[in-house]
């Protein structure tokens, strides 16, 4: 996974609330079994809308979004498609939880800030101002303000280092998992005897 430490530059502003994963990546394109190149389908049904701010020619790494961004389905094609357009950071008041988790799996950083802070960042983005995201410092800086954000230490560390969670668990926790399984087998044998 590509590490992420700082992202700096102009940002896209998409103020709309409840942008769900069907808007980000319409279901009919879920038949594509690739992970790469999905930017071509991002916001497919919105591209034609006049003034829609995200296109295939996107050169901005930061998206300032509306509340509840990425709500709806679990489809990882949503972050795959956005990531394919070069977006590494999404900032919003709130996110659909599965989308939020999926971002980290793909070297992307979702940042939750309060409504007023996000509103100010929309203004900066629309004015063409520069936004600085520093994951090590856990800050977003724009227009002279430095906004701290929360992120679990484990996720921050994994993203800074570009760690793949699957490799990490296989390398560090196989014995823990085996111990858990042995204990579960004693405590709840019925979970082991069920014929699936």
């Amino acid at each position, binding site marked *: 996974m590509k590490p992420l430490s700082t992202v700096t530059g102009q940002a896209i502003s998409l103020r709309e609330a*409840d942008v769900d994963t*069907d808007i980000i990546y319409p279901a009919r394109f879920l038949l594509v079994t690739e992970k790469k190149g999905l930017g071509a389908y991002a916001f497919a049904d919105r591209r034609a809308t006049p003034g829609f701010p995200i296109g295939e020619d996107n050169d901005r790494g930061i998206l300032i979004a509306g509340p509840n961004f990425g709500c709806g389905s679990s489809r990882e094609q949503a972050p795959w498609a956005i990531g394919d357009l070069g977006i590494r950071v999404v900032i919003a008041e709130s996110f659909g939880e599965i989308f939020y988790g999926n971002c980290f799996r793909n070297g992307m950083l979702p940042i939750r800030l309060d409504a007023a802070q996000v509103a100010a960042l929309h203004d900066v983005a629309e004015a063409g101002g520069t936004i600085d995201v520093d994951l090590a410092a856990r800050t977003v800086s724009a227009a002279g303000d430095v906004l701290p954000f929360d992120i679990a230490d484990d996720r921050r560390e994994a993203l800074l280092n570009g760690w793949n969670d699957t490799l990490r*668990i*296989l390398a560090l926790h196989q014995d823990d*998992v085996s111990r858990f399984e042995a204990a579960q087998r004693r405590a709840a044998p*019925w979970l082991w005897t069920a014929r699936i």
Partner: protein
Amino acid sequence: MSTKPRTLYEKIWDAHVVDRRDDGTCLIYIDRHLVHEVTSPQAFEALRLAGRTVRRPDLTLAVPDHNLPTTPRVDAAGARVPIADMESAQQLAALEANAPSFGIRYIGATDAAQGIVHVVGPEQGFSLPGTTIVCGDSHTACHGGIGALAFGIGTSEVEHVLATQTLLLQQSKTMEVRVEGTLGFGVSPKDVILHIIGVIGAAGGTGYVIEYTGNVFREMSVEGRLTVSNMSIEGGARAGLVAADDLTFAYLEGRPMAPKGADWDAAVAWWRSLATDPGAVYDKVVTIDAGDIAPSLTWGTSPEDVVAITGAVPDPMSFADPSKQEAAKKSLAYMGLTPGTRMQDVPVDSIFIGSCTNSRIEDLRAAAAVARGRHVAANVRQALVVPGSGLVKRQAEAEGLDRIFIDAGFEWREPGCSMCLAMNPDKVPPGDRCASTSNRNFVGRQGPGARTHLVSPAMAAAAAVTGHLADVRELVGEAA
């Protein structure tokens, strides 16, 4: 283990912690993994490229559902009908090949037990109380209806669970949604969850796992609880829970994959111990009076856009929040609705009775009770009834429900996700309006330009036979 009173969620969580980090991140063991054709191909491919195996194929069950056409799957000669759409055919073939090559049990398209993963899991006794259940599908929340901690995951996490049988997770906050009182005549579990989402909002549950409590859920059938928990994600919560009780145990006992004999008794004893302790504290509590819940439906393009069937299309300016005003204006433009129009005056073009939310036998019975002796209105262009599984279909046919639907002018289909998400031939055409028992009314969800009103099965049948959104209470008398 702490002796502090704990909630159901906290007990299930604690019982599955493999490793705990300083920041609260936990490595959580996964007891059951459902796999379908859409979110798994990239995961299996990644395993193959890395030369990995599935750690616990014995805890994993693969079932195709999303893409599968709902038209007959074998022809008169008993041969399998090929799938016309090439990409769908490839995705389905990939699951059919991946499952055996990784040693995973596969319930295929022509198996009587095939169905929507979230219908199949509880029906087979694969989903059990107190277990952790995942699937690459957000409506995995459904299995919370039997007291399992069940939630949707992305494809990278599907791969991760296949390889490790674990997930790294942050513990959620807890929300109690307590509904007490007596539900009115004609009010179904779907109306209850639509009402709840209308109250808490589409992001109201974000960061929480919801536990549904109160006499309404204690008295609700297990199938009704599955409907409620299914839509937890539409209120923003990744998972919902209803504590397992005697109704749950009666529902699960004897299911093919449920424990048997002494194992069953031991399991029931453990499941009983998981109920939230007296004095346990939830991070948030929402209390709803059952008497306030009417047969309900959505008017807009977010599941929180809920109104009683006796109500009218709202004026966007009636919302306090300026961004909600804007969203409502856009919603109404998309939905082709004018503020002040009575919901019951809105004509419909399509009817969909099905989906992981509402395709179980009780749902079909409720719809058939309305359809019986009536006929789909002339202005309705398509009316589909899609059972959630082959076993539901067989049961419905044994009860004669298929005849009721067919005689009334509905199409009686094979099991699958069907018109819920426009990934298979069942779609709502652009501009058409659908009364749908599914779970999402998002823009384009049922097809580009499709307009969705989420309703209960009985309300969908009422809309079908009247040709407009209708109050089921006017069609089915209280004495009936």
